[in-house]
């Protein structure tokens, strides 16, 4: 079994899905011979050819709209937006059609497509290459929003997303594309969507996060544990629909929760989780729920981007603040 990175997990899943289902096609800008600007589709064009790994004209609306059209007629497109910022023109087709096709036609049609794209900041990229738009997609009825944070989850969740009969927005945290290596078997086993993954068990406090922020959150958990605390870490993994049960079950034991997200704070997924805790989790809470988030500002250009993002220290400080509440 090979040790692979998160992006290699994506590539391995794409290849596996293409092998097992001839209706799966890659569809996007530079996904073909070039293998994608991050190499997510590397090697696929050689293996599967022009008809399966399709370089498109440079037109994001077209990529999204034609994916809806293909998905409704028996092809399973895995569309790539080259960067998170370029998904904005695609929103019309995701919101108005991908998420509605099944409902609009009372189940006569469906839209089994995946829109995958690198998301988040931290790689010194130009403007519009570093945003975290998961809350925009999470607000859309009829679409799933999945964000893996490890090589094995990238592989297993991507397989689940492609095989799913409904549209999935698959956001790849590019800052941790090559952060960790992990042994992942190319066994075709998918991992379940719609559930949180508990990365570390603990009893004193629950840290909830997803995507790239798993990195800082795990480091914060290490620091807190060095100080004798028992920290539970949850990777939400599917931000829509949201598995509140796992989070509430954890908070029932710990009574304390910090939610960490890279996206801006206002109306974010962290807010939805906090609201869920204020509802079904309120009687178990010993302290206020804290959100450690990106600021409600335009994502700064790269010289300041790490100052925008939640840091290990900001997470540790928020945790300590609510641990002091007795």
């Amino acid at each position, binding site marked *: 079994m090979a040790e692979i990175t998160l992006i290699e997990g994506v590539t391995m899943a794409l290849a596996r899905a293409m092998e097992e289902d001839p209706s799966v096609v890659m569809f996007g800008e530079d996904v073909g011979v070039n293998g994608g600007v991050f190499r997510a589709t590397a090697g696929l064009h050689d293996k599967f050819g022009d008809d399966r790994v399709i370089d498109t004209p440079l037109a994001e609306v*077209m990529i999204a709209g034609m994916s809806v059209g293909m998905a409704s*007629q028996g092809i399973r497109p895995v569309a790539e937006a080259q960067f998170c910022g370029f998904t904005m023109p695609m929103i019309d087709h995701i919101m*108005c059609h991908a998420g509605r096709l099944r409902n609009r036609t*009372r189940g006569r049609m469906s839209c089994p497509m995946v829109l995958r794209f690198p998301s988040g900041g931290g790689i010194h990229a130009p403007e519009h290459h570093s945003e975290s738009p998961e809350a925009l997609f999470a607000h859309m009825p009829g679409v799933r929003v999945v964000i893996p944070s490890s090589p094995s989850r990238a592989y297993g969740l991507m397989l689940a997303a492609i095989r*799913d009969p409904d549209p999935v927005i698959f956001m790849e945290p590019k800052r941790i594309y090559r952060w960790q290596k992990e042994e992942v078997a190319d066994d075709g086993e998918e991992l379940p969507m719609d559930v949180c993954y508990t990365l570390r068990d603990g009893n004193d406090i629950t840290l909830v996060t997803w995507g790239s922020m798993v990195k800082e959150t795990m480091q914060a958990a290490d620091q807190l544990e060095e100080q004798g605390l028992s920290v539970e870490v949850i990777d939400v993994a599917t931000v829509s629909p949201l598995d509140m049960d796992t989070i509430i079950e954890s908070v029932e034991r710990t009574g304390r929760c910090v939610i960490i997200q890279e996206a801006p704070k206002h109306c974010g997924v962290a807010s939805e989780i906090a609201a869920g805790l204020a509802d079904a989790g309120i009687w178990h809470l010993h302290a206020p729920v804290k959100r450690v988030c990106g600021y409600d500002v335009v994502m700064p250009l790269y010289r300041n981007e790490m100052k925008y993002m939640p840091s290990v220290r900001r997470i540790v400080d928020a945790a300590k603040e609510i641990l002091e509440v007795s």
Partner: protein
Amino acid sequence: MAHTAAAFKVDYFQFLKPDGKLVEDQQVPALARDFDRLTELYKLMVLTRTFDKKAVALQRTGKLGTYASCLGHEAAHVAIGAAMKEEDCFAPMYREYGAQFYRGVKMSEVLLYWGGDERGSNFSGPKHDFAWCVPIATQCLHAAGAALAYKLKKEDRVAVTVVGDGGSSKGDFLEAINAGSAWKLPLVLVIVNNQWAISVPRKKQNTAATLAQKGIAGGLPSIQVDGNDLIACLWAMDKAVNAARAGKGAFVLEMLTYRLSDHTTADDARRYRPSDEVDEAWDNEPLKRLKAYLIDQGAWSDDKEEELLGECKQWVQQAADEYLDMIENDPQPVTAMFDYMFAELPADLIEQRTYAQDYAEDGGHH
């Protein structure tokens, strides 16, 4: 040295003039002598107009929601449906009932949709046809995607879509032209140019002499026809669909017609449109000329017309009754808004569904 890098022309076709006579200065397609076919399509045009009148009446009497009339577009719409095979895919905008009736969509289903019931979009026409598409021009890319799917699967099928003169200003339409050109797709893009995008006239969309030439800019064969001439519309559609099916790629067809109605029943065109323009447009409308032609050729008569109108009224009334009966006696339950969101309902939606159902049973929605 300067030279002409590219040059183009847009051909315009009209075979049946507004007075019901065939044009004399050019060859007329054999279709003009196929009276069985023309009569069949004429009947559908009359049925479509009868239906349209009834739908507007239902809206005016509070029995139907906002409705988009197809008055004046009957030749264009019926020709689009008539040129397609069942296995082809139709991606309409929202007023192409004539095309949809030809493809087996029931009149009661159109009424259900505008009557606020999603079951209308689970229609009796081909199961792969798209439903009504309200966001302007987005359907063009769905058709392009369908066409690419057929090409990838090596299926002998064509995707046909319709956009208005207003919609031709949208990127989706232009990106679909580009896609049709890049992949040589079995795709027919029809611009039903009815001169008005709600209150904005054609001349305010742009100053191009034709809308068809947008297709030429993208590398597609593109022509313009009299959209009130069924013979020209069907001849052009046959040409485009056959070319697409033969692997010759995508085609752009502009049909020049006129929106004789308001944009929808929620609109009042008298606020922005001169009445003499509408009066003049009535002289060119598609039914009158075809009827005159068929009578002139001995293929139709006033007696047959009277009989047909009676039948159409009866069929339309039956459709209206069926629709009204369904919404009154077999309405969708509150749970129906949840049941088609996903193939399998996620846990949070199951919870909301139960909650909504409890309230509905309790009368709590009132």
